[in-house]
């Protein structure tokens, strides 16, 4: 795939941001992730049961459900971070733009380069703000100082935090507030221009004001990126997502347009959860 990308990169108009893979699979243009009959076990615990989900491009897909329902596990399967836990087994398939990411030929590093992730707790590196953003480009072999400067600026602008931080680029990222740290982490994910951004309860450790800023940011980012967001906060899902999946006990109970889910759910359990009867 890389070879093709390289060749195409020389021929195709460089302003087209879309990845090459997408052009090859035009017939699935709208679907980024197609999950089919996914099962996942942690040792003997059956954490995900027969998941079927289609995730669409340049939309915000929210994943809701009570704690322990498998929503975090699912999102971490999408960039195979779930493998950091020893003893994980999967069956079924998840195709990302036509390639099965659970297959043996998929290099996780390549996948994760295309699929960025933002975590529950802001996790900047104990480095300067600049180095935090430059980390991704650097590990992928970008050494040019001027180019790195541009990437840093562009990424911070993309996360709407440039104005706050432009004079503090050499300060340690730990000096930032929690909300700023999280937006820095989003900027860090943007630095390598992924196609998809996974967000695992990105606002759960933040105050309401910072939460609002992140939500606004997500609305902006959706123009260029496909976003999949796990959230424990149903209002948040209702406010910012286009589609919502409701997970319960490792199964997808319902997956539909957000409006439909929150106004007229077809499953009784979804209704119970949304109206706050459990979870």
């Amino acid at each position: 795939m890389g070879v093709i990308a390289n060749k195409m990169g020389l021929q195709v108009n460089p302003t087209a941001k879309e990845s090459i893979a997408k052009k090859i699979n035009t017939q699935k243009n709208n679907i980024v992730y197609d999950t089919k009959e996914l099962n996942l076990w942690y040792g003997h615990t059956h954490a995900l049961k027969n998941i079927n989900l289609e995730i669409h491009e340049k939309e915000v897909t929210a994943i809701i459900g009570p704690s322990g329902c498998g929503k975090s596990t699912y999102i971490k399967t999408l960039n195979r971070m779930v493998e950091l836990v020893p003893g994980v087994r999967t069956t079924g398939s998840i195709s990302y733009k036509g390639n099965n990411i659970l297959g043996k030929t998929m290099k996780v590093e390549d996948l994760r380069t295309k699929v960025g992730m933002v975590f529950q707790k802001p996790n900047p590196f104990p480095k300067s703000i600049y180095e935090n953003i430059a980390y991704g480009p650097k590990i992928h072999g970008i050494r040019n100082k001027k180019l790195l400067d541009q990437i840093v600026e562009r990424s911070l602008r993309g996360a709407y935090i440039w104005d706050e931080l432009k004079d503090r680029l050499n300060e340690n990222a730990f000096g930032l507030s929690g909300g700023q740290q999280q937006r820095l982490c989003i900027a860090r994910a943007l630095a390598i221009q992924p196609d998809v951004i996974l967000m695992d309860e990105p606002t759960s450790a933040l105050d309401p004001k910072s939460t609002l800023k992140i939500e606004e940011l997500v609305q902006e980012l959706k123009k260029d990126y496909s976003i999949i967001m796990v959230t424990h906060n149903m209002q948040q899902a209702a406010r910012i997502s286009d589609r919502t999946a409701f997970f319960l006990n490792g199964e997808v109970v319902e997956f539909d347009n957000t409006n439909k889910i929150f106004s007229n759910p077809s499953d009784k359990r979804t209704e119970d959860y949304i109206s706050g009867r459990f979870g």
Partner: protein
Amino acid sequence: MQKISEVKQEAIHVSEIIAQNKQKKNVSNLVEKWIPTILFLLASITILTTLGILYTLLSQAIQFFRAVPIWEFFTGAVLKPLSQNPEFGILPLINGTLISTAIAMLVAGPIGLMSAIYLSEYASEKVRRVLKPLLEILAGIPTIVYGFFAFTFVTPLIRSIFPEVGATNILSPGLVMGVMIIPMIASLSEDAMTSVPNAMREGSLAMGATKLETTFKVVIPAAFSGIIASFVLGISRAIGETMIVTIASGSSKNFTFDITQSMQTMTAYIVEVAGGEAAAGTTIYYSLYAVAITLFVFTLLMNLFARYISRKFREEY
């Protein structure tokens, strides 16, 4: 440079640059592939060390046991390596080792444990923060310095009170070794005692028990295996200690229980023979390996025993 001007005009295409870089990163792929092997080889050096020790001790000790029957060595009460008719009995050395260890533990055991009680149960956080690092200094002083102290200060001091004590004797190094081991026992016992849950203490204190009663009836029984483990490690340390006894206890190979006399420990014997004129290949030379393997087995058993006890202890709460 051309690339930069390009990206300045257009938007930056990081993802494409990255895709191109991925083609070139053969070197780092190679690194990624070989690193685990390299690290594994480094880790196996520790295993090689153990094998090296076993090989060294066994191969040379076998040479010794060709000349001296193993039974005679372990039951012989006479050690005269340099005599016309040399005799190689290890018992005088084991005797010297055990006596110096016993003296050391008589000092380090009670004082170490009482220090642990003070630090864990009585001392305020402020006092603890001053006393603990000071005790750690004691643990960080090289043993050669303790040897010097035993030989040039403690022995003359003892002799000024009891003139019949020899210029080299087992008592003085035993006592100094005890001081050296205090911090080890104090800190390990303290760890065991502080890990006793506070709820247990509170249960006792709430019934009107004093701190002393709580310490002896609740905390120490609960931390008992940890305390025992610290004593066993202290004993192992005393058995393996070399310089203090080498300097201050002399090299008499008499089988005696008189602590005012010079006695030789296993470790001191090894220093004497290795540093002496004994040529490689002689029975005397090989004898130090036979002594060393005995020492090695002694300390290994102690360490395994201590680990066994403290592992059991971990399951208690």
